[in-house]
């Protein structure tokens, strides 16, 4: 029995199937005890191979971050200039200049050798609420709010995990362990006892675009914003990926005909 050319290429299908199997089975398997039961899966605009960020969602999310989260959490890797870059919230440069200028940052030393305060510039990173980890812990009863620059990439579940935390403050189920003083019950947090008091509430942030400020909306918006902060090049990556895939598929098709032609005198 002669194998057809397509059958001969089965090794590649087998290798791809095995690899994808490993990739998709390993993530939940690595999280201790399987998937987080408190995780609520949200369908995000940036999911999937063609996903993009929703500009207005990111802008609203920035507002939530700025007004609420940034009072405790730092975001050291993100700069004001990123806010006007393509593939992000895409604020205008003028808007970003004004946003940055709303902060006082330390600079220096000047010619007298002294440090001084000046209004923020686009090239500045987002100012941190506390000068260091110790200061944050001292102010927050010993707990440390993690830096948010990469939080979405550093947690199983990604943006859906952030959303689940923000909407996961419930009364502990009957029979649950007593929540120690200073901690709060959260259905999505590993171990369920989180030091962060519920940060977001219904109607807390007034949106400029008139979107109803439900807790659900605020939580989604800020989670999407944090996803962008973690992965600001996602749109560029998806776009280039599509082009590369088309190129490789066409190239493979051409090479397939070349192989058939070259080998035609051998069978």
């Amino acid at each position, binding site marked *: *029995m*002669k194998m057809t050319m397509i059958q*001969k*290429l*089965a*090794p*590649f299908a087998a*290798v*791809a199937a095995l*690899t994808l199997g*490993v*990739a*998709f089975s*390993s*993530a939940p*398997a*690595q*999280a*201790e005890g399987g998937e987080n039961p408190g995780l609520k899966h949200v369908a995000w605009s940036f999911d999937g*191979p063609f996903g993009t960020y929703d500009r207005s969602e990111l802008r609203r999310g920035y507002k939530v971050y700025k007004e609420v989260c940034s009072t405790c959490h730092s975001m050291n*890797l993100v700069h004001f200039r*990123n806010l006007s870059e393509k593939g992000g919230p895409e604020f205008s440069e003028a808007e970003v200049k004004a946003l940055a200028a709303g902060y006082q940052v330390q600079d220096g030393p000047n010619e007298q050798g002294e440090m001084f305060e000046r209004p923020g510039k686009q090239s500045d990173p987002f100012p941190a609420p506390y000068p260091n980890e110790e200061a944050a812990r001292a102010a927050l009863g010993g707990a440390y709010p*993690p830096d948010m*620059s*990469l939080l979405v*990439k*550093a*947690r*199983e579940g990604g943006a859906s995990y952030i959303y689940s935390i923000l909407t996961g403050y419930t009364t502990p189920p009957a029979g649950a362990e007593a929540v120690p003083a200073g901690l709060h019950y959260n259905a999505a947090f*590993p171990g369920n006892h989180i030091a962060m008091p519920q940060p977001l509430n219904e109607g807390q942030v007034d949106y400029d675009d008139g979107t109803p400020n439900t807790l659900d909306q605020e939580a989604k918006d800020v989670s999407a914003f944090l996803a962008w902060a*973690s992965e*600001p*090049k996602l749109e*560029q*990556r*998806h776009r*280039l*990926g*599509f082009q*590369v*895939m088309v190129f*490789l*598929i066409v*190239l*493979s098709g051409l*090479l*397939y005909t*070349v*192989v058939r032609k*070259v*080998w035609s005198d*051998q069978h």
Partner: protein
Amino acid sequence: MSGHSTYKPSNGFTKWIDSRLPIVRLVHDAGVSYPTPKNLNYWWTFGGILTLCLGIQIITGIVLAMHYIPQTDLAFASVEHIMRDVNYGWLLRYVHANGASMFFIAVYVHMFRGLYYGSYKAPREILWILGVLIYVLMMASAFFGYVLPWGQMSFWGATVITNLFSAIPVVGQSISTWLWGGYAIGDPTLNRFFSLHYLFPFLIVGVVVLHIWALHVTGQNNPTGVEPKGDKDTVPFTPYATAKDALGMSLFLILFAYFVFFNPLGLGDVANSEIANPLKTPPHIVPEWYLLPFYAILRAVPDKLGGVLLMFSAIAVLFVLPWLDTSKVRSARFRPIYKQFFWLHLIVCIGLGWCGAQTPDLVITHVGSAESGINFTVTHLARILSFYYFFHFIILFPLLGLIEKPKPLPESISASVLGTAKS
């Protein structure tokens, strides 16, 4: 590189070159006229794919190294600077990080191909040993590389692996200290790992040259395991094998591109997106997927030193395979019993990988009655699989060759291609 050369310089200039440095002849003999068995299937394209992977790692790595800072305070931020501010830095980094995984996928396919078709058997012992050496150097390179971005898993993975040496009696602790360049993992460690991470891929290049040299002396094995008997069994490397290799690479790159562009973190651990923190042990320390089977063997042994020795033996045994196998026949196509065990062994290796990713006390099933039975855990499974791993090579390899009755071999490759013998 061996045998007689068919290269004929066509003009005065190439003749002049050829009598001084026959480099064109070398390329011609190795990459154009080199005879390859005409029945090679697509499992044979993974050698070319591996060369491509090595090239991709070196090129992306050299550019990454232009922006990377091997200092514990700055390493993580420098990688994020690459991701956010360097032009196409995210692409370089994702290609390099996923490229390591792709490299291992290809090497595993390549090695199991060799196991299936008996490519390690005489006269290809040195060729096989050089291959195993490349594999060992790859694991070392990938281990050093994984430490560089200085994430949580970089740091804790390095801690676990370097601590293994402290299991060696008497001198163990001194060896760990010597490896670290201090009493804990710190700047000296990161610096030397960067230096070695830059060096090792070039050592691999050197061994690859020897590997290909040896290949061109013995010629390729083929799916029948029967040596070519002359020109009618072979075709010139170019255009026949070059065309197939190009198609193989292109198809492989589709898988590669899928991960780089659409699932760049799918093969990694989320904990490595968090900066290393020596004071915060992650709940679950696991190496990258390609080292998991060895990690499972390490943890299967209750004694630390025993585990380390068994883990290194799992690699070491590969070096002596050519002498463990007593079969007269190479290819599993004609070895009905070995063929079954080949697949079993593949499943065992995947099973070990699975065990390596789980917490050791995870209960798989409960055996016996509810009160008096025992919990069958990942550790138990890993012990059974580890046992089989060695049993396969040390007992079955010598034994099967003696008891198995191989199917009749085809007269020659061309006879098998023409269908006189079933393939």
